[in-house]
């Protein structure tokens, strides 16, 4: 952070890096890549220099490699020399411990002023905020995540994989690197619940939430027994859309809505399952019920499953289609509610409702 502030470098994080830079910092751009913020992707695509710290430039981050950051020279800091030049061309390798490398870099550079480039990035933040379209009828998963982070700002958030994971990544607001835990590389559905049990046992005083989908949760749902027997009071927030949402989103966008093999039929009844294992089961079906069940879950001292009914048509937006350039990022829903998070720049309060192009 010292280095970024000294040279006024905007900072974007990969999925795995979430929490390593304060999300409410004026230089923060949130996550980049396939489901990153538009402004992070635009900044990367127009930057003339990228300082990558421990990032691996995987396909979800770079999009089409040939058109990734076309104007940028790349400095790559990594302790593993095998990472240098693996996916993108690196101009200046810095091999070693990242913490000391950043400290030494911060000493070696001189203070830079806020620049027209910073203004330009701030303009993107203002014009293309992360957000969602409000809808009084159905529960918006993004709003659930925002509310959870607001109600429990110190929580450890563990995620499953898929839409739930991306919404959690987009709307996670804490500035602590060990409080966002997710299977980023392998993308293992079923990871979140047992990992949350492990995290809670390691940090018994922390409130630990598993942000789940109904598909992922069922992949290791039997661990409710482990959690209940050992009094590991993990809270599972099931964003229940009744489908394998991320795959269905691709079918919706790229396969003419031919929903092959992605319908889960909203079975089982997660409240009954939680109760059958000796835990607490809660459910919200309307937006007005969300705050109540989340508060009840936070107050609960037993294993709790919160079944939150959302629409199967909910999408993770924005999105860079697979194989496309980061510049080709699509807005999949009209943003009328900008993320309440911090991604505001001085003079650009992100919490205000913004009128935007569709």
């Amino acid at each position, binding site marked *: 952070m010292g*280095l970024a502030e000294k*040279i006024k*470098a*905007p*900072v*974007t*994080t*990969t999925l795995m*890096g979430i*929490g*390593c830079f304060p999300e409410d910092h004026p230089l923060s751009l949130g996550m980049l890549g396939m489901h990153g913020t538009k402004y992070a992707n635009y900044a990367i695509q*127009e*930057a*003339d*220099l*990228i*300082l*990558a*710290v*421990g*990032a*691996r430039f995987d396909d979800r981050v770079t999009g089409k490699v040939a058109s990734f950051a076309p104007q940028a020279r790349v*400095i790559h*800091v990594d*302790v*593993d*020399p095998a990472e240098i030049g693996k996916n993108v061309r690196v101009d*200046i390798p*810095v*091999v*070693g*411990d990242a*913490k*000391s490398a950043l400290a*030494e*870099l911060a000493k*070696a550079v*001189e203070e*830079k002023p806020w620049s*027209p*480039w910073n203004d*330009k990035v701030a303009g993107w933040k203002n014009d293309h905020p992360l957000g969602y379209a409000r809808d009084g009828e159905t529960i918006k998963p993004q709003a659930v995540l925002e509310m959870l982070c607001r109600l429990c700002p110190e929580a450890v958030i*563990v995620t499953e994989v898929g839409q739930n994971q991306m919404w959690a990544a987009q709307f996670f607001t804490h500035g602590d*690197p060990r409080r966002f835990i997710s299977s980023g*590389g*392998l993308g*293992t559905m*079923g*990871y979140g619940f*047992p*990992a949350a*049990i*492990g*995290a809670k046992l*390691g940090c018994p005083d922390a409130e*630990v939430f598993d942000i789940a989908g109904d598909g992922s949760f069922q992949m*290791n749902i*039997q*661990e409710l027994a*482990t959690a209940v027997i050992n009094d590991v009071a993990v809270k599972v927030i099931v964003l229940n859309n009744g489908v394998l949402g991320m795959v269905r989103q691709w079918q919706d966008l790229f396969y003419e809505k031919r929903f092959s093999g992605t319908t889960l039929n909203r079975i089982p009844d997660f409240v009954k399952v939680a109760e059958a294992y000796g835990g607490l089961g809660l459910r919200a079906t309307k937006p007005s019920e969300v705050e109540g069940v989340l508060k009840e879950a936070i107050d609960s001292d037993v294993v709790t499953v919160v079944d939150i009914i959302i629409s199967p048509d909910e999408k993770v937006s924005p999105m860079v289609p697979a194989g496309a350039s980061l510049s080709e990022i699509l807005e999949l829903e009209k943003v009328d509610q900008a993320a309440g998070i911090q991604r505001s720049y001085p003079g650009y309060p992100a919490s205000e409702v913004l009128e935007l192009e569709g």
Partner: protein
Amino acid sequence: MGKMSGAEAILECLKLEGVEIIFGLPGGVLLPLYDAIYDSDIRHILVRHEQAAAHAADGYARATGRVGVCLATSGPGATNLVTGIATAYMDSVPLVAMTGQVPTNLIGKDAFQEADITGITMPVTKHSYLVKDAKEIPRVFREAFYIARTGRPGPVLIDLPRDVTVNELDFKYPEINLPGYSPNLKVHNLQIKRAAAALMEAEGPSSTSEAGSSTPTATGSWWGWPRRSRPR
């Protein structure tokens, strides 16, 4: 420390490494080890499926920064760990995964619940061990924890044939002696100089139509491990 069984030695190693909790599920070849766990201070969390043991150890490691430890029996128990080990490998999470194995004299005979787990996990572990002699236990565990947490962290697998956990050994915890493994943590000055110069030169977008001037974009990744960031 005198004579002890392989199983007792394993638990002594875990204690010396500061392990307080392990996640596992027993099976036939692990009976001697689970018998020793019965008397141990180390907390054992019984999962309902071995995949969850690996993920729970992974979640513990990510939340605390310590090495996570999981345990599964031979054959299907071990193969059920694979997804969790691969998950940890992809995200550079320090993990020590212990697996039971059929007795050394039955390895390669298609014995009941036999699987070549060191072979299966070779592409998804930072390192793996098949312990063939109880005397090797202290050295293997010392190295496994060291390798898992240093440099770029990652999962290390230790395959433990049943007889190795039963046979006796003279316990002595050795010093690390791995001449072929030395993670490079110290950054070269010249690299810092070049990087700093580039950071000072950066002019913003190079497309001249924009009023671009100065500053790059930094891509931060991974959480801050105590002495390093996202190493392997």
